């Protein structure tokens, strides 16, 4: 079976998300679609799966042009999809989710869940998936939820399986497992469309690679291409992937955290008894799968968490229980995890966003009024210094791309006197060029003698930047290890396996 796309074009208003895309996927191959965030990969696949209607172009299966108007049409044509953002109903069981939309009834009003259960167990056994058909989806870890989506596609006999950024939520070991299963399916004759922006995985699993940039197919590559070649095709210019850094010049202890526990308002501990310290000129990177207490730990240090126990000191001065403002002004630069929600006010201008923290201090304020002149001057200066690509500093922050939004946050946070940089997922969702910029800035801060606490779920980033690595699992620091620890070992730690 083969899937062929011809001239697929999709516009969202003025934006052309897909521009005359041609693509052919054959059975028995893993076809990787590589592209930066926003390149249009999900849009293309949502069109194939019937979730979006193309403005132009045709989809054909085995040389027959099909009209796919809904996921049911897609499934009927043998196309299954695992979404980037899972489409499962949390309060339903696995089996219920799988029959959804295909409810077969035994008699009036009675669902035939029995058959679904048997099928789930069969597929689950074949791929070592270990999925319980009667478990509630909300109780399952994301890795298992993803398997549920794969099972659903397989049960409906998908001959083409689309996986949209499937590894974003997985540990390195889970990723390996997934790649193995993909290969197994390929060998059984399934065509797999594998969407990702991670070069390592593409080179490991793909048989063919198609690269999309700004909605257009810009080329194909063979899996033997180097990471640098793939990256520069993706970005459209040469990029260096290696983070260049010298050996750290360590100073005295800057941040010291002792027995820190953070609870939510119900009293459940999200961070458990964590102790560590960071020296001047050192990057401590906290690795871990998303949702293991990293966000809460970062927030506790800057005063955004209310229920904390334990000690936090910066240069010997207490930070536990102080206000956010006090924490920031005692020398912390904070890059929050979600720049849209926590980092920026989208409706405010760029220049206003640049003074969110300092708006009531000189030179921006004389106590009661804000100096428009000082705000504008600062805007022009920072936009130039951090190379923020905007038409004017007076434009709303919402008009910026992700990378430039992050630059605004960096520019603001690094303009105060800084002793410690706390950066939560600072490159999530950024394009390669912006990632380079952020990494360089973080290293520059470290080299000028500041302590850096970096939280990242991307192992490449952790390994590239860290001077020491802490691994966080279920709220605990399960280990603090040297920067040259192997990926395998880090992966095991991230999955909670202690040495």
């Amino acid at each position, binding site marked *: 079976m083969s899937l062929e796309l011809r001239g697929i074009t999709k516009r969202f208003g003025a934006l052309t998300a897909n521009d005359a895309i041609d693509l052919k996927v054959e059975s028995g191959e893993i076809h990787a679609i590589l592209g930066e965030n926003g390149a249009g990969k999900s849009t293309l696949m949502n069109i194939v799966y019937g979730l979006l209607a193309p403005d132009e172009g045709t989809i054909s299966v085995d040389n027959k042009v099909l009209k796919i108007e809904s996921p049911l049409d897609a499934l009927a044509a043998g196309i299954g999809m695992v979404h980037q953002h899972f489409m499962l109903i949390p309060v339903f069981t696995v089996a219920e989710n799988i029959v959804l939309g295909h409810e077969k009834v035994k008699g009036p009003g009675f669902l035939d869940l029995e058959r679904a259960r048997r099928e789930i167990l069969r597929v689950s056994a074949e791929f070592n998936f270990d999925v319980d058909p009667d478990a509630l989806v909300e109780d399952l870890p994301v890795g298992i939820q993803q398997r549920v989506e794969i099972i659903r596609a397989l049960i409906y006999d998908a001959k083409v399986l689309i996986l949209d950024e499937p590894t974003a939520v997985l540990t390195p070991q889970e990723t390996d497992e997934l790649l193995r299963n993909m290969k197994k399916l390929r060998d059984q004759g399934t065509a797999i469309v594998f969407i990702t922006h991670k070069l390592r995985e593409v080179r490991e699993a793909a048989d063919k690679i198609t690269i999309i940039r700004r909605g257009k197919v810009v080329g194909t590559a063979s899996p033997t291409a180097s990471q640098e070649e793939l990256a520069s095709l993706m970005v459209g210019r040469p990029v260096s992937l290696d983070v260049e850094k010298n050996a750290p010049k360590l100073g005295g202890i800057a941040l010291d955290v002792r027995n820190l526990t953070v609870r939510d308002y119900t009293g459940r501990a999200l961070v458990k008894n964590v102790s560590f310290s960071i020296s001047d000129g050192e990057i401590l990177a906290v690795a871990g799968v998303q949702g293991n207490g990293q966000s809460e730990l970062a927030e506790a240090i800057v005063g955004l968490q209310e229920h904390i126990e334990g000690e936090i000191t910066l240069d010997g001065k207490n930070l536990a229980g102080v*206000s956010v*403002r006090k924490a920031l002004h005692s020398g912390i630069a904070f890059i929050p995890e979600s720049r849209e929600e926590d980092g920026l*006010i*989208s409706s*405010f201008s760029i220049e206003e966003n640049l003074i969110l923290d300092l708006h009531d201090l000189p030179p921006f304020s004389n106590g*009661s009024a*804000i100096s428009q002149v000082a705000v504008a001057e600062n805007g022009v200066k920072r936009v130039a210094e951090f190379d923020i690509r905007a038409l004017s500093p007076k434009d709303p922050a919402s008009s910026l791309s992700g990378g430039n939004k992050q630059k605004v946050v960096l520019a603001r946070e690094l303009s105060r006197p800084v002793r410690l940089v706390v950066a939560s997922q600072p490159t999530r969702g950024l394009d390669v060029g912006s990632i380079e910029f952020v990494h360089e800035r973080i290293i520059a801060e470290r080299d000028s003698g500041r302590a850096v606490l970096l939280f990242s779920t991307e192992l490449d980033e952790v390994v590239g930047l860290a001077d020491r690595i802490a691994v966080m699992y279920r709220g605990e620091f399960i280990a603090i290890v040297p920067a040259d620890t192997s990926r395998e070992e880090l992966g095991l730690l991230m999955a909670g396996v202690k040495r």
Partner: protein
Amino acid sequence: MRKILQKIKLPILALVVALFVSGLLIAFSDPKVLALKGDPLSMIAKALSIAGSAYWALFRGSIYDPQLADTGFFGGLYPLSETIVVSTPLILTGLAVALAFKAGLFNIGAQGQFIVGAIGASYVGFTFELPIVLHALAAIVAAIVCAGLYGGFVGLLKARTGAHEVIVTIMLNYVASYFLLWLLSTKAFLREGRMDPIAPEVLESSRLPRLAGQDYRLHAGIFIALLAAAAVWWLLNRSTLGFKFRAVGANAKASRTAGISVAKSTTFVMVISGALAGLGGAVHILGADHALTNEVGGSFGFDAITVALLGRATPLGTVLAALLFGALRAGGLTMQATTETPLDIVLIIQALVVLFIAAPAVIKAIFRLKNVEEGQAIGSKGWNG
């Protein structure tokens, strides 16, 4: 200029459509029009003449009435004076709602705050004997303090306990109304020789000067209201405090992350919002009514929500919207008195304006507009705001 035009396009078109739809309603609810069912042409003519005369009465009651012009051009402007008298408190309550909204709060409590302000101003006005100017100032300050505390209480509750301001302000509206009713039955407030709930008139020394002689109710309160609008504009767009308000209103999480205290912003904005509504009450008592009754509040506090919505929560927009509503209110009385169209049609016009602004799709579809700036739909933010 084009930008401004772009901004006011939607409210103005909404008004036009609302007037048109209400015109149909006026005409076709009239039995005389319906009686002509068999004869479409004369039916349309009759409809036009009925709607026309209703709107003409509305105009005469709100802006200029030639029949009153026997003493000269200015005599005919009597209705305009009435419009401004009604608009003045509405500007202030409208500003109260608009300011809170910019800070992310839905202040439904302008009505209660208005009443509390009116009580404070009235008490100082009839109790103390102070020199002119000073007396009015003292009464105004009393109103601002009382209503500021009344509003600030809501902000404090929200900041401390998370109690939703919509619920608290609705409840406090009742508290203010019934408190007023009770006060008017106490010795301190009951006017000598009267049994009905009316307080003594405020002393001459505390009254706001009339601007066009004793025949017109137009008083200096309009200047206070316009000054307040300018002050709110400055507060929001130029001051440090206003920056905090807007930041918290636009994205409370990001503000908190940048070290801005959401709790303080919430409390302060409700103090100022309450004070503005209370100032409305003071101005109305000291300028127009002079004596406190249980009906002092009218619907100034409730119309304020619509006014702020129509004015897109900006100070200038709020002033214009308040003037429009004042005109509809003042003109509605004349319309009811001189034609067979009831006052309620004014409420329908107001409701339709709001409806069309809250659902801009309708207006866009009618006029085939593209890219009209919708601004923030106040109404849709409601509960989560």
